[in-house]
């Protein structure tokens, strides 16, 4: 059951020039805050009529904190970046289906592929899978070295493969370069999140393979609650027949039409 509540901002950190991490604390249960799910964040100045969807980037059950990592791209995220410690942030969540990882076992090999603001949900996923004893390989692409964030999490959770468009860190190239070079050995599952181009590349790369691939999609969202039909996607041959906010944001690459 989604709930709407005020969290208090306990940390606001700048990760790169335009990417920020907020740590938000609550005294209530976080049991529904699973990897791959998201929250709808109220923009606190009261001007914006719509909440903004942000993926859950980390959950610390001990401190009752969740992390949101966001890039400042417009008016809403600009407002978020202005908040200072102590501010109240109203979240509606947790929403969406989340990654289906219940049946993973120790030693399972898993590949994560991400870029841009697609990384936050993968960070939480990597951490969780790592703790479950899976062998997690993560491929991440950035434009340039200065834009890198979140890579420690992936290194801690397993193995990190990094590419930058200008070669300033990791391999020269992008996630596609890494994917092409990659040898698949006993990979049990692929998860990807990032820009549309990345998702398409992943979908294509594994199209003829038997390994299950899950893609986490983004969309402008009105409600996040399956009401406004502002986030539809075509699945299983239907036309705009599923809500990214409700049946998603995670869809099987074999079923979703990008």
């Amino acid at each position: 059951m989604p709930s709407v509540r005020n969290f208090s901002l306990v940390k606001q950190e700048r990760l790169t020039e335009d990417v920020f991490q907020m740590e938000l604390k609550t005294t209530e249960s976080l049991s529904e805050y699973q990897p791959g799910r998201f929250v709808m964040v109220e923009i606190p100045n009261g001007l914006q009529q719509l909440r903004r969807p942000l993926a859950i980037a980390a959950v610390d059950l001990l401190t009752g904190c969740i992390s949101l990592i966001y890039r400042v791209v417009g008016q809403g995220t600009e407002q978020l970046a202005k908040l200072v410690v102590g501010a109240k942030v109203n979240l509606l969540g947790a929403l969406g289906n989340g990654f289906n990882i219940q049946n993973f076992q120790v030693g399972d090999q898993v590949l994560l592929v991400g870029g841009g603001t697609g990384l936050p949900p993968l960070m939480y996923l990597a951490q969780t899978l790592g703790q479950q004893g899976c062998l997690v390989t993560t491929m991440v692409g950035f434009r340039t070295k200065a834009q890198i964030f979140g890579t420690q999490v992936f290194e801690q959770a397993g193995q990190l493969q990094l590419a930058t468009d200008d070669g300033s860190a990791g391999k020269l190239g992008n996630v596609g370069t890494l994917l092409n070079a990659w040898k698949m050995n006993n990979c049990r599952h692929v998860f990807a999140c990032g820009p549309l181009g990345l998702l398409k590349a992943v979908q294509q790369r594994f199209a003829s393979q038997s390994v299950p691939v899950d893609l986490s999609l983004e969309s402008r969202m009105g409600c996040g609650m399956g009401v406004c039909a502002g986030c539809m996607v075509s699945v299983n041959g239907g036309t705009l027949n599923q809500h990214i906010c409700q049946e998603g944001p995670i869809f099987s690459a074999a079923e979703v039409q990008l």
Partner: protein
Amino acid sequence: MSQTTNQRLSVKLPGLNLKNPIMPASGCFAFGDNRYAEMFDLNELGAIIIKAATLEPRVGNPMPRIAEVPGGVLNAVGLQNPGVEVILKEKLPQLKAKYPNLPVIANVAGTQEADYVETARRLSDSGMVDALELNISCPNVKHGGMQFGTDPASAQALTAAVKKVSSIPVYVKLSPNVTDIVAIAQAVAAGGADGLSMINTLLGMRLDLKTRQPVLANGTGGLSGPAIKPVAVRMIYQVSQKVDLPIIAMGGVSSAADVLEMFLAGASAVAIGTAIFHDPLVFPNVIADLPSKMTEFGIDNLSDLIKEVRSRRNEN
């Protein structure tokens, strides 16, 4: 005030005995089958207006369909719905099974008179719906009924045709994108409407400076939310002075004070749409706030307020 909350909030409209006047606006609560419905008990609502039903399923407009503007939201969903058959077989039975006592208003849309009539007939005959809301005002599809909503003669003819096949009251939902809202209201009254529902969205547009194209794939979209409230209040006020039909008011309502403003304008019930996107608990909140707001402004009960406002109009 020795009256119970129920006595203070209840309102009566054709086909609708409501314990309070508050209901979700069409398209902003699906068929009650959404996640907001997990957050509060829908039995608290006065009624529910369900998403537009068309004769055939509709996939709606391409994405993106939704954009934010100052004080409002633009949408171009385009009447996406599973069609009246699925609505009758699945959506309504599920809704009635869960909330047998919740009054249901079905929003009916179409392209031509014939499909409006057939959709209305089926919904009316189903026994699962208390009233129809004839959507002659959707701005988001080429043939979404807007032609009916902007021409008095077509509006009257369509209303009359639907009335003929409907055994339940018919409310006609008016478009604000017209020169003379009173003329349209009078025409649908002449067509036999039992009530009015107003307003639908204002036709708007937003352009993206990066792509230099409209933000919405459809180009234009319907503007809703606080930005349109002054236009809604004005139109409801104008119409209620000239037309004797009860009005279900909507357009930018997000608080108990807004609800009372709509009653002062001439409403007999109030629907809330866009506000839920911001405040998921807007329905229980507004319903809970109403009695004390009414007391603050010396309003005993809504039924009397409706009569008072209507009689004031007639004097003018």
